[in-house]
């Protein structure tokens, strides 16, 4: 039972991390109609910036803040230099162009930081465990990830649904020309939105870097998970991304923890130990396939055309 609670919390934490990544992806897709494979690179850059700046400044929070600003700037630079020209092209062009960016960033990181991974060290006040319930200890860092991600999710919701900028973003998603004709600088707005998505991805990356390490290519596998999240949630829908991300995080974590044991009930021990890992890594893709069969547009399709 104790383990189960811990696994659920881990699942929730992975889910929220996925949400930070998926939110940027789905925002950019929903508003600019752009498929961005380089989103995982921003996640990776966030992790490397985070590790570098915390080591450089010696202070965790300052380092994180600097890293966030840097990822935000890099995101906006990418948008202005390259991606802006891709709007309105077909999706294949997006895939190819951003694939090129991804190769570039992987190699650039290798060139700057070297092929070895980079550690992000936690300050002592985060690196301990606290008792959630009597007898249920949990890492304070993982808990703080959950809290931070929830706060960010709320802020994002507030920004998009309750502020003037959010209103413009939503208006730009449904009719770009009309918003531009009303005297709004839509280009700047797009750049800002892209930077926001980049900063969210970078935040997810640096939070993950403290648990694992910052590595080249770390963004690619989780990017595909984020794709699964937005397919399940419905592309363009932030609410869908939030629910689907937590769903996927829970299924993946809990499935990996318990599926091998569950299989042991039906299969021989050797069969279960072979099929277990394979099946549990397939689990979320199977869920995705089922969702697609039932609802090809995802669970919460965005209304924007």
């Amino acid at each position, binding site marked *: 039972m104790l383990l189960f609670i811990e696994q659920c919390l881990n699942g929730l934490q992975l889910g929220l991390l996925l949400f930070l990544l998926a939110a940027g992806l789905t925002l950019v897709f929903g508003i600019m109609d752009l498929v961005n494979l380089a989103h995982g690179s921003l996640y990776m850059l966030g992790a490397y910036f985070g590790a570098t700046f915390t080591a450089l400044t010696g202070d965790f929070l300052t380092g994180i803040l600097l890293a966030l600003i840097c990822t935000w700037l890099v995101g906006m630079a990418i948008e202005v230099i390259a991606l802006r020209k891709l709007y309105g092209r077909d999706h294949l062009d997006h895939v*190819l162009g951003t694939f090129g960016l991804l190769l*570039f960033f992987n190699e650039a990181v290798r060139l700057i930081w070297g092929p070895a991974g980079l550690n992000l060290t936690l300050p002592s006040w985060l690196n301990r465990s606290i008792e959630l319930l009597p007898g249920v200890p949990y890492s304070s860092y993982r808990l703080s990830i959950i809290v931070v991600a929830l706060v960010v999710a709320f802020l994002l919701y507030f920004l998009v649904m309750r502020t003037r900028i959010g209103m413009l973003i939503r208006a730009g998603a449904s009719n770009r020309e009309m918003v531009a004709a009303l005297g709004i600088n839509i280009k700047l707005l797009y750049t800002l939105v892209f930077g926001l998505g980049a900063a969210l991805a970078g935040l997810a990356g640096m939070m993950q870097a403290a648990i694992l390490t910052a590595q080249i290519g770390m963004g690619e596998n989780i990017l595909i998970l984020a794709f699964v999240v937005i397919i399940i949630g419905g592309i363009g829908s932030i609410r869908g991304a939030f629910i689907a991300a937590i769903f996927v995080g829970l299924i993946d974590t809990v499935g990996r923890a318990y599926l091998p044991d569950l299989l042991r009930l039906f299969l021989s021990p050797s069969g279960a130990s072979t099929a277990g890992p394979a099946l549990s890594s*397939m689990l979320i893709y199977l869920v995705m396939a089922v969702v697609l069969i039932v609802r090809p547009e995802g669970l919460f399709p965005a209304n924007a055309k």
Partner: protein
Amino acid sequence: MKTWLTPRNFVVAALIAFLLLLPLYTSSTGNYFLLSLFTRIVILAMAATSLNLILGYGGMVSFGHAVYLGVGGYTIGILAYEGVYSGWLQWPLAIALSALVALIIGVLSLRTRGVYFIMITLAFAQMIYYVALALDRYGGDDGLTIHRRSQFGDWFNLNNKTLFYYVCVVFLLGTVYLVYRLVNSRFGRVVQGSRSNDRRMRAIGFATFRYKLVCFVIAGTLCGIAGALLANHTDFVSPSMMHWTRSGDLIVMVVLGGMGSIFGPLIGAFVFLALEELLSSITEYWQILLGPLLLLVVLYARGGIDGMLSRWRRD
């Protein structure tokens, strides 16, 4: 009057002549590195040609095409590991399995369109990649060495490098011919019609889903054969041959050469892999050059090399 002596036909003819005559040079000088490189180019050109069938003609942007390379390759590898060396058994099974995988992925993915299709094919490919990673018995992450190539009897020994090269060339040209015949048939017209306007094709009475599915399965199967060839060529299979960046490479080859052109993928594979060799000999960090190059091609050279060649007339 249509003239046959266009720059594009000239390049294609030169390329094919080069591919056919290359073993004369390599066997006289013993430069087997070059032969091995070109065997790889020919095999990947075949995979790219199969992808072009769905990507260029069918408008189905599959981002998981490398998975069939893996399915075909792993069939050979696993059978060889279990002691089954007969090519007469290995190859039909590799073909059947890649067709089956393509059928399952196709049935599920073709329910969706556009960006959903891209992401779903990507996700399914990733799923099969993870299955290969979890195959501890067959090497898992480290991959599986194949100790004996497929056996087709004494008179047809695939260990002979030149013979194997020609087998690959025959498969490549066969694939190109098959794709050519397919896209110019009634079947191909329906698939291309569905690319331009799926709803209209359905309105005039074509069950486009079935046509697209068959097209998807044919492409997957052809790529599975390429995978079987690749496994025999490298004597090794590993999950990395179906990593999603490999699928990306295949798309790059198709687009670089020219989508929806019969010989485009062949030119694309040739240029891409030659570029890879060339850039990696200049710098270890060659992808830092390749990435922006790719972006430039996307931004400024739509239609790929084939498109440029057809536009470039001497009149």
